[in-house]
């Protein structure tokens, strides 16, 4: 498990340092993925409720809501990283 996690971190490091994509893209991808998952889960909860599976529906709604919260939190961190990066860019421009 930790091996795969290290591999993922290495992959992201290569993306950020060598390919030179901006850092906030990584967070943005995470936010978008969890948002899609949350929408899927929330729709599932409505579907379960229409089939009279109340407990399953509430559990799915809870899961969807957890995904929504994580996506919004990731979006917030994305915004912070974006503004830090943009500020660094403008400072570099001022120096040069």
């Amino acid at each position, binding site marked *: 498990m930790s091996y795969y996690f290290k591999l993922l971190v290495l992959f992201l490091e290569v993306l950020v340092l060598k390919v030179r994509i901006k850092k906030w893209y990584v967070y943005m991808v995470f936010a978008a993925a969890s948002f899609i998952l949350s929408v899927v889960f929330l729709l599932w909860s409505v579907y379960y409720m*229409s089939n009279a599976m109340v407990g399953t529906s509430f559990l799915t709604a809870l899961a969807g809501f957890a995904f929504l919260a994580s996506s919004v939190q990731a979006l*917030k961190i994305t915004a912070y990283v974006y503004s830090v990066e943009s500020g660094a860019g403008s400072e570099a421009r001022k120096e040069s």
Partner: protein
Amino acid sequence: MRKPLILLEVIKRLIILVVFWTLINDLFYSVFSGRLLTNLARIFSLPFSEDVLVSFLVMAASLLALLTLITSNYGLYVATSAAMLLTQVPDISTLSLIIFGLMGLFLTDTYVTSTRHKRSVKVFVKGSRIYYFIVSAIFVVIAFLTTYFTTLYLNLFTSFTSSIPATSTLRVFGLFLGVNPVGRALLILVAIPAFMKLSLSFVDAVAYFIIPNPTLAKSELSSAARFDREIRYPFYTLMSFIFTLYMAPPSYYSLRYLMMEVLPWTSAFIGSIVGGSPYATLLPILAEVLFFFVLWGLLSYVTRFFRGYVNNKLIAVFVFLATFFFAITYFSSLDMNEFLSVVYFRYYRDFLLVGELLLQITGFVP
């Protein structure tokens, strides 16, 4: 600097006035037509019917609405909307109006705090006056969209709860959530704050995207967003209760088995004490309930040591319990599932009996 703040306070009052217009209008109408006094007289008369309750709720809601209009307090706003949801089965327009009012109040409040601390935090927007309009339009659109989606989701949820087929055993629960005003208001009041907090975070993120502020973002990243926190699992306060729900029936029956079969003198001793009392048939049930609460207290003392964090000891306890269970099922001839279901069923059936007894004592059930 003073004038915009006063203007924003006026805007907050206007939002509240628009949201609770029907209630405030009703209050003034009843005061000037003298209907208030007759309503009061009806409330204090003894035969209490549903009609009187509704009129009392309407009156309380309108008084709360007036208080909210004066103070513009969030707690009062929530209380007023709860009372308003209880008085009528809420249609989409009322619900969306309430959510939009809350969103608007939060947005204006955020703006007020940001302008108050303007000297310490420099927030400025580059560009012409049209840019301001575009930014404010974006925020208004976000407020509308979040309101729309929240209302849509809540409405879908509640409409499906009332469409559970009549043959289902969950019909009563569905009707409670979908049609009963109390259940519906409960569901909505649980859902709205959660969605509201999320949409405020969303607005915050969008604000940082529109006006990137590196210094503020750096301070936020270093202080607010910490990643080295331990995972605090949900329902920690309820954990001992959930454990008790699982553990009470088997442990109670094993204890009873121990007392009846292995150590018969204890049961004889207890029997000599309680044998003469007229409530001897109720005593086992009472013992079950008492055992439940004692075990709950014990477990809440034990679970305090975990302090709400997932650690190795807790996982070890779970693994030990699971292996114990499987060992018992493997080495004994008992069908564990069937045996346990019988045990749980008998134990909690007695709890239902106690509930019925309480209802009989208080006079709700003949």
